């Protein structure tokens, strides 16, 4: 089942990339990043059946980083929403001057 799990991980990661490239809603973009992190976690767990439990330790670290990233990212989105009243990335172009 290792090859199937790694293939599923690759497909899920690519779906996440396509989501990041094609969507403009900032929150859905963040959720696509979470999907990519989940795909990487799946390949960690699949390979840990061969290489021992160290892969599962890294999954714990990845989940911690994902939680921190979600907290800070959503705080940034809320702070931006107070200014421009939208989460559509097309309308968030303050850096263009």
């Amino acid at each position, binding site marked *: 089942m290792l090859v199937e*799990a790694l*293939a*599923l991980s*690759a497909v899920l*990661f690519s779906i996440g*990339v396509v989501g990041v490239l094609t969507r403009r809603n900032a929150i859905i973009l963040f959720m696509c990043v979470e999907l990519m992190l989940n795909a990487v976690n799946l390949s960690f767990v699949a390979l840990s059946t061969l290489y021992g*439990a160290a892969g599962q330790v890294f999954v*714990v670290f990845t989940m911690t980083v994902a939680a921190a990233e979600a907290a*800070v990212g959503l705080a940034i989105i809320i702070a931006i929403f107070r200014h421009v009243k939208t989460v*559509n990335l097309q309308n968030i172009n303050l850096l263009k001057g």
Partner: protein
Amino acid sequence: MQPNLFHPLAYTFTFYFFGLTALASAVAFVTRKSPVAAAMWLVNVMFCLAGLYVMLDAQFIGAIQVLVYTGAIMVVFLFVIMLLNLGHVSDLLDARGKWGQLIGLFLGLGLLAEVMALNRHNTIERMIPPDLAAKAAEAASRSAAGGVIGPIAAPLFKEYLLAFELTSILLLAAIVGAVVLGKRRTNAR
């Protein structure tokens, strides 16, 4: 790998069931317009992945996948979606134009082809040194007596102790950052 109690055919069927459900839910997640529907499909993906983790003999990871990802992170996402009240028509039309979507699709397919070429069966078998696989199998059979959490906890608190402690600093920084960013400024300068 520890021997599991599944019949091989039932194992394969359940594995493919969870995998294909995760795949279909991921496609639905990317294509939904409403953020709440997308979040619900993503929750479905994460549940299927938790099932796959259990089938790959990572029961503890499956449990914290449900607890942390679907129970905590996705709930925070739903809180923010509902706090910002994102349901207006102007917000729902968020996909890029036809060319943007085509370019995104082709980039995604190209990435998929690259990763699949790396993932082919013989590549994986070539990457694994034969003695390492034997060592890992030996270690897995030895640690089976320590339960499911023991083999994860031992390297976490011995080999990766520094990374574990740095994680706490990362979480503290994230909490402080989220509070500072989310705080409403009373006297705008």
